[in-house]
């Protein structure tokens, strides 16, 4: 593969998208009917892409592993969705949103992409409102907003602590409408196990029917991946336990470059791990930091109950270290600060791996009712999980793996390095740089699916109108199916002693310990060795009961974990390669004297896009240099 071409249009930043749209090739309505598009995933990006493409008149086939598209993990996003509406008259604008994202991402995202997302953010809000998404409103009937971490304006639209659910159900409703119309056909309980490339173009996928175990072939003129992130590589994370990277990874192995895999966001406010059987860490929305104050005791190992520790013996460490932003610093900063305190021995709770998030002052000032209105359901959830009442005593929180900024490399058109293969939402790498700001994931996923992809995909499909429906009885499909079957049979015939989950848990621990919130060369190198050893053991000692041709959840898990071993290695490689600290990627060797991240702009202002060169061979690094024409690169400071 040659040079990476990002295809960013020329011209002033604010004109790029408009210019692109007015010059892009189009497909006439009559021709759209003849074109098939596969969309994998039904989250905010997938469902919105599928429904919008269906509205345009393409034949869409939409896949998800869940039993219903409404269950994709976008449903769990809590806090909100950003838009540059400036309804609050607080100086917000498209440009300001763009700036915040570029800065929040620590100057490791493309200017053109980020500006475009900011630009269409307002359309997203309009569209959701029209779809009946019940965003919070003011008494006058207009939409309300709240402020979110890392910014100084109030631009986050929300529906209590269930914004993701409401947005997803909005997408699901528009998807349902297309299903009724017949322009989208749903394939639930299907897992994509390979991408089919014909003559260098993405032409189909191989799926496994999770009920019957049957291997199926699906073809199309273009394939869109909206398969989310790979946060479950840490085993314990805020993601759905079945979330996985397999679809993206298979596409990677077929030629799609994987960009910045080590950019993983660790979310600061999660319910800490309570026991070793735990399968998941639950996120407590970042919005809680609007009113909650984060603190630990001033003296080491102080095990008094939180309410018994007097004010002067509390260390509000975020307010202390970052007076300008206080508790509202970006996620990576907050996570690391919490880790720093816990590592130094100031953590609370039995494990010492937690900090307090205290609402005492907010309740005193605003009244319990006001706090209940804003966070009622989150408080309830916390109480359900822990049995403790956050109205009475502080919440305990600790960081957990949450969002992956890295993903499949895409150009301005959201096309990967395989022609005809697109990646949208979290599965691509494009808009968040090295760190994502709160409430930007819903915005980006919906922007990609509703407003960007439908406009860019025609540029590719315009040349495809003479290509008849892609047959599935070709050697390419045969070979892909054969590969899939081989792997499944191999997994099931190991007949060792240890379950896939157990391996996953061990892999997760390696990743968390050595490639989590902070990394160093020795640790990363050690992790590489450990991953390879464990992977070896996996292929020797895995046990998958049952057979291939039936509903077999252990087999599903095993396949996902097998892919994670490979991705884990690449993730560590990428972290090793990037000898700087930026955003969520914190290399201990590269920090300022007061412990802040130190970028190396001269050498690392690039996107690291990794090419798969064959089983057992090292990945090849391609650099896409990032050019900052509009923004001056500064040290990201929240002090």
């Amino acid at each position, binding site marked *: 593969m040659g040079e990476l071409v990002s295809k960013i249009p020329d011209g002033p930043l604010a004109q790029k998208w408009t210019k692109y749209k007015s010059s892009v090739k189009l497909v006439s309505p009559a021709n759209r009917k003849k074109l098939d598009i596969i969309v994998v995933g039904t989250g905010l990006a997938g469902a919105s892409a599928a429904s919008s493409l269906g509205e345009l008149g393409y034949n869409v086939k939409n896949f998800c592993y869940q039993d219903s598209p409404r269950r994709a993990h976008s*449903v769990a996003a809590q806090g909100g969705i950003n838009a540059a509406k400036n309804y609050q008259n607080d100086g917000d604008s498209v440009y300001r949103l763009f700036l915040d994202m570029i800065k929040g991402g620590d100057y490791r995202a493309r200017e053109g992409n980020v500006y475009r997302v900011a630009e269409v953010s307002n359309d997203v809000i309009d569209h959701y*409102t029209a779809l009946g998404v019940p965003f919070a409103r003011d008494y006058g009937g207009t939409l309300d907003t709240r402020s979110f971490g890392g910014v100084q304006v109030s631009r986050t639209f929300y529906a209590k602590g269930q914004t993701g659910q409401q947005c997803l159900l909005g997408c699901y409703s528009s998807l349902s409408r297309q299903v009724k119309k017949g322009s989208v056909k749903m394939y639930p309980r299907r897992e994509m196990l390979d991408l089919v490339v014909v003559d260098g173009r993405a032409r189909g996928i191989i799926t496994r029917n999770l009920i019957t175990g049957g291997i199926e072939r699906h073809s199309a003129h273009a394939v869109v991946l909206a398969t989310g992130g790979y946060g479950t590589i840490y085993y314990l994370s805020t993601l*759905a*336990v079945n979330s996985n990277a397999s679809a993206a990874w298979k596409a990677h192995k077929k030629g799609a470059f994987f960009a910045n895999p080590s950019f993983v966001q660790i979310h600061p406010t999660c319910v800490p791990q309570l026991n070793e059987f735990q399968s*998941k860490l639950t996120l407590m929305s970042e919005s809680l930091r609007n009113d909650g104050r984060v603190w630990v005791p001033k003296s080491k190992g102080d095990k008094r109950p939180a309410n018994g520790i007097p004010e002067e013996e509390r260390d509000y460490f975020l307010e202390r270290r970052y007076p300008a932003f206080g508790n509202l610093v970006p996620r990576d900063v907050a996570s690391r600060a919490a880790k720093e305190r816990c590592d130094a021995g100031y953590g609370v709770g039995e494990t010492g791996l937690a900090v307090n998030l205290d609402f005492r002052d907010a309740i005193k000032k605003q009244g319990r009712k006001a706090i209940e209105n804003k966070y009622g359901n989150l408080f309830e959830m916390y109480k359900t999980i822990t049995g403790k009442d956050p109205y009475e005593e502080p919440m305990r929180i600790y960081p957990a793996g949450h969002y992956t900024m890295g993903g499949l490399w895409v150009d301005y058109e959201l096309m990967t390095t395989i022609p005809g293969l697109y990646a949208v939402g979290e599965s691509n790498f494009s808009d968040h740089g090295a760190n994502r700001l709160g409430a930007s994931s819903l915005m980006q996923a919906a922007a990609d699916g509703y407003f960007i992809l439908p406009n860019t995909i025609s540029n590719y499909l315009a040349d495809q109108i003479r290509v008849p429906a892609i047959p599935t009885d070709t050697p390419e499909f045969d070979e892909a199916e054969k590969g899939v079957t081989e792997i499944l049979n191999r997994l099931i015939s190991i*007949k060792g002693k240890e*379950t896939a989950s157990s391996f996953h848990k061990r892999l997760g621990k390696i990743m968390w310990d050595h490639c989590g919130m902070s990394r160093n060369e020795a640790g990363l190198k050690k992790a590489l060795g450990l991953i390879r050893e464990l992977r070896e053991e996996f292929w020797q000692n895995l*046990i998958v*009961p049952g057979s291939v041709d039936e509903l077999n*959840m252990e087999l599903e898990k095993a396949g996902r974990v097998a892919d994670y071993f490979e991705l884990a290695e690449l993730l560590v490689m990428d972290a090793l390669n990037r000898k700087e600290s930026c955003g969520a990627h914190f290399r201990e060797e590269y920090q300022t004297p007061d412990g802040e991240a130190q970028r190396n702009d001269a050498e690392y202002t690039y996107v690291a896009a990794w090419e798969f060169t064959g089983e057992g061979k090292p990945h090849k690094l391609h650099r896409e240099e990032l050019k900052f024409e509009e923004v001056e690169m500064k040290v990201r400071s929240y002090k």
Partner: protein
Amino acid sequence: MKFTLKIWRQKNAEAKGAFVTYRVEEISPEMSFLEMLDALNKKLAAEDNDPVAFDHDCREGICGSCGMYINGHPHGPVPAVTTCHLSMRHFRDGETIWIEPWRAKPFPVIKDLIVDRSAFDKIQSAGGFISVNTGAAPEANSIPVRKKDSDEAFDSSICIGCGACVAACKNASAMLFVSAKISQLALLPQGRVEAKERVRAMVEKMDELGFGNCSNTGACEAECPKEIKLTNIARLNREYYKAF
């Protein structure tokens, strides 16, 4: 903690199922119900036995995947939680726990505790949407919505589509599910435009799929993990009469 589990095992949709007794030990009271089943499954799988199949995903009570009928209650005996959030501390040490799949004609068993809930998707695609194309939306603040209506619409919209209402209802009625969506959209001006077509289409689909009728016992409301209110059903009825 130790438990005796009586779990419905059924190889596939065609097979005849039966209850199988399992014993689990060393369960910590902090574990969730699904984590308790994970522990059982880990043991089963390590011995090359078929683990108990159940739907689950987010494990934070919002995706609606999980759902099993535990000791006479969908999602177990604790009100307002999903199975993934049901903590083992609510059970007595040594207790016998019955675990069954949702039982309803429109929700056939696929395997063990997994049922086919695609009927809900069919009802949704019959009319559970507002017909607006991408790009056609007016400015969000151009249609003010009374806060009270908007909040009420939100309260109805938080349904997670888990099917507990159907499972709890002695008639296997889907009225609470349907009414939640109808209410959400009926309460918003955006949704009023096609309110009549929507309610007729959704109710018709619901009946066609073989769900039972509402006889107002209130079991759905009592067992709904998201506490969706019965008043939604009254609104559904009202909307339905108005639609003719």
